[in-house]
């Protein structure tokens, strides 16, 4: 036993050497190996980002379409019929189309944009660069992870073009609706394709997550201890852990759903009548699916949010020229969030008939999340406090993130209480809450990341003016859209309803709904402007001339402006200090690679 531990000095250092030699005889790259089936983590990150952008346009467009219906329920838009034919006969969105739009909007943005597009992009780009590795632990698996995601995307897109349309039971695909093809056309073949696409997606996430975790653990360069890692890497680490442990549970739930749909089993089905006919299924429990779904679903919101938190921490620290406030507290609260994320899933199910005693335990655990979240918020604020802030678009989006996280987080405290949730459940209040805290906030984190690391990705800057317009319109727009929705929800307006005109009470919201719709169209247009800025800048943006344009301490800025496969041309630099030495001993910043001086003060 004891002799099993002969430590051999070449453990990981040889790693670099090996990669070096690899790097040398890797020059015979073709277009295909360089841009398509690339195993370079930077290229894979860009692939995730661009695929994510395409998905975001699709998902965002869907929201504009159903906002048209919500804002102008009594008007017709003939152009819709031109594009969508029978789904919008006479220029009016059909109920089935509306449900399909809502479902796909949720699925696409939660999974394909904010999971794959956000953590897929930045985990791939930043982990090897910031821990000091030539590439991921397994570049091949990394590439496969993208292509599984791509296949998932293809299946999901294809489901939108079949005759019965895509899945339309809500992004949570609760049975029995999703299990019974007879129940609605959105539960026919589109639902099967949804399940298949999600299964492929889980595989992609698993391959990616395993890679991230083992890269962060095994591939750190010399001197890069875990507490010297930038918070981005820590956030991406916890994200990967969440994904590895929770996505398989969704997979199990979906496999059982697939069986219920196609093999006549009764996992989720019991006592059901369709069209006056009793189904033979008995003994299943629809609540079971909700448990399984939310066992993933809750960690999923942190899978979405944590990378944004990590990037915002980094961006805010760099741009306020101050060390991050409370590094260990940040780390501890992310760890706490990561654990709590697994323990609170049933707060999505307070009104399912969940055992009230069990519910009270879930309330307690849910409200506990407020503690680490508040720690993080105060740490961001204190990082900014009396900082020498450079208001770059990235920094603005970082600050916007903090604002949105506070606004959206506070309404989470309402919803986490089971008694209040009885009133608020399935109302627009919930929609407003999670769109602000998870949707828009994560998007802000993502934009902060894109603006900040664009120079690293493409060796050019994005256009600042367009960036400022993008920020202010999105920021104001997000509050104009989602703040009033809280009031609708408090008044009892249900979510997912096509037409609420039968309730006289809600007629007071007509004008408000119109305003929300108009603002969403404007915000959507501004996002298109961002997309234009992104692609334009790839080719025509101002060129980066220095290695370290933001004056940051982390390792990615020690690579060449356009790093090749292998990142560093020579040796991988050694790390001597943590990632946040800003404004120390009269110096603006000290890179991580610089050895600690003899009479340097301690932080």
């Amino acid at each position, binding site marked *: *036993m004891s002799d099993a*531990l002969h430590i051999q000095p070449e453990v990981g250092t040889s790693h670099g050497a090996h990669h070096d030699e690899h790097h040398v005889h890797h020059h015979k790259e073709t277009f295909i190996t360089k841009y398509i089936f690339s195993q370079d983590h930077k290229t894979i990150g860009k692939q995730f980002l661009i695929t994510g952008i395409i998905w975001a346009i699709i998902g965002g467009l869907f929201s504009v379409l159903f906002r048209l219906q919500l804002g102008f329920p009594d008007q017709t838009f003939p152009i819709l019929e031109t594009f969508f034919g029978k789904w919008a006969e006479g220029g009016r969105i059909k109920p089935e189309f509306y449900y399909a739009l809502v479902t796909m909007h949720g699925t696409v943005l939660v999974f394909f944009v904010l999971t794959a597009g956000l953590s897929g992009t930045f985990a791939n780009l930043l982990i090897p660069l910031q821990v000091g590795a030539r590439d991921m632990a397994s570049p091949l698996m990394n590439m496969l992870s993208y292509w599984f995601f791509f296949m998932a995307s293809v299946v999901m897109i294809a489901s939108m073009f079949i005759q019965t349309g895509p899945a339309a039971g809500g992004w949570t695909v609760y049975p029995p609706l999703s299990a019974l093809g007879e129940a609605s056309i959105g539960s026919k073949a589109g639902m099967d394709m949804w399940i298949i696409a999600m299964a492929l997606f889980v595989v992609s996430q698993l391959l990616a997550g395993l890679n991230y975790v083992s890269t962060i653990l095994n591939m750190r360069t010399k001197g890069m201890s875990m507490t010297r890692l930038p918070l981005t890497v820590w956030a991406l680490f916890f994200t990967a852990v969440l994904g590895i442990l929770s996505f398989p549970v969704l997979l199990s739930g979906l496999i059982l759903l697939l069986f219920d749909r196609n093999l006549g089993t009764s996992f989720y089905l019991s006592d059901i009548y369709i069209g006056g006919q009793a189904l033979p299924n008995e003994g299943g429990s629809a*609540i079971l699916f909700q448990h399984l779904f939310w*066992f993933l679903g809750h960690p999923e919101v942190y899978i979405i949010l944590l990378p944004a938190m990590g990037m915002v921490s980094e961006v805010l620290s760099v741009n306020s020229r101050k060390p991050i406030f409370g590094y260990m507290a940040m780390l501890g609260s992310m760890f706490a969030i990561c654990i709590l994320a*697994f323990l609170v899933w049933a707060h999505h199910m307070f009104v399912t*008939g*969940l055992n009230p005693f069990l519910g009270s335990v*879930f309330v307690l655990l849910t409200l506990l999340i407020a503690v680490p979240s508040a720690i993080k918020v105060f740490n961001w604020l204190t990082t900014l406090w009396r900082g020498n802030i450079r208001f770059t678009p990235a920094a603005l989006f970082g600050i916007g993130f903090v604002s949105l996280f506070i606004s959206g987080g506070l309404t989470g405290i309402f919803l986490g209480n089971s008694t209040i949730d009885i009133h608020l459940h399935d109302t627009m209040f919930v929609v407003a809450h999670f769109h602000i805290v998870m949707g828009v906030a994560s998007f802000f984190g993502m934009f902060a990341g894109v603006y900040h690391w664009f120079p690293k990705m493409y060796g050019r800057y994005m256009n600042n003016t367009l960036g400022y317009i993008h920020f202010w319109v999105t920021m104001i727009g997000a509050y104009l859209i989602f703040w009033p929705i809280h009031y609708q929800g408090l008044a009892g307006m249900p979510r997912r309803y096509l037409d609420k005109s039968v309730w006289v009470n809600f007629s007071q919201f007509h004008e408000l709904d119109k305003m929300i719709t108009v603002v969403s169209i404007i915000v959507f247009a501004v996002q298109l402007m961002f997309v234009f800025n992104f692609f334009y800048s790839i080719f025509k943006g101002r060129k980066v001339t220095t290695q370290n344009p933001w004056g940051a301490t982390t390792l990615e800025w020690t690579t060449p402006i356009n790093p090749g496969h292998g990142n560093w041309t020579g040796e991988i630099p050694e790390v001597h200090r943590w990632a946040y030495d800003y404004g120390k001993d009269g110096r603006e910043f000290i890179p991580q690679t610089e050895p600690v001086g003899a009479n340097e003060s301690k932080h």
Partner: protein
Amino acid sequence: MEHTSSEITFHHHTDDETFKKKVKKTTILLSIITIIELLIGLVIYNIHKGENPSAYLVLAFKGMVCILTIAKAYYIVAVFMHLGDEIRNFIMTIVVPLMLFIWFIAAFLIDGNSYKNLRNDYDKHFKETTSPRPHHGHEAPAKPEAPKPEPGKQ
């Protein structure tokens, strides 16, 4: 990028004899535990057959089987999968996340049980048709009554 062998440091220098002894010991241990489990399974079977199966006794035996299973899992993981030979931190990264199962199992089962109680309260038909009938030992076979020829039949 394939990594060459230079990255690998973990050579088990355990000598043949001790290792084989250990494997042998574990195999025998696993077999014995499995046999005990099977015996308990048969005991449960016989309790069920009896006139008045005691729910608590059955539960106690089932609890024992669960503990034995966890012991088995421990030996497979620690010896066969060599986790016992790894560095403690590595063991922790694998064992600690598995703690999530405690709440995972508890919450699911409590809610499953609560769903049953709800249905028994509000769905009389469910309760009547599925509740175990306690008056006879539940494996006692049925003997149909001798049929009385019914008028109008045949």
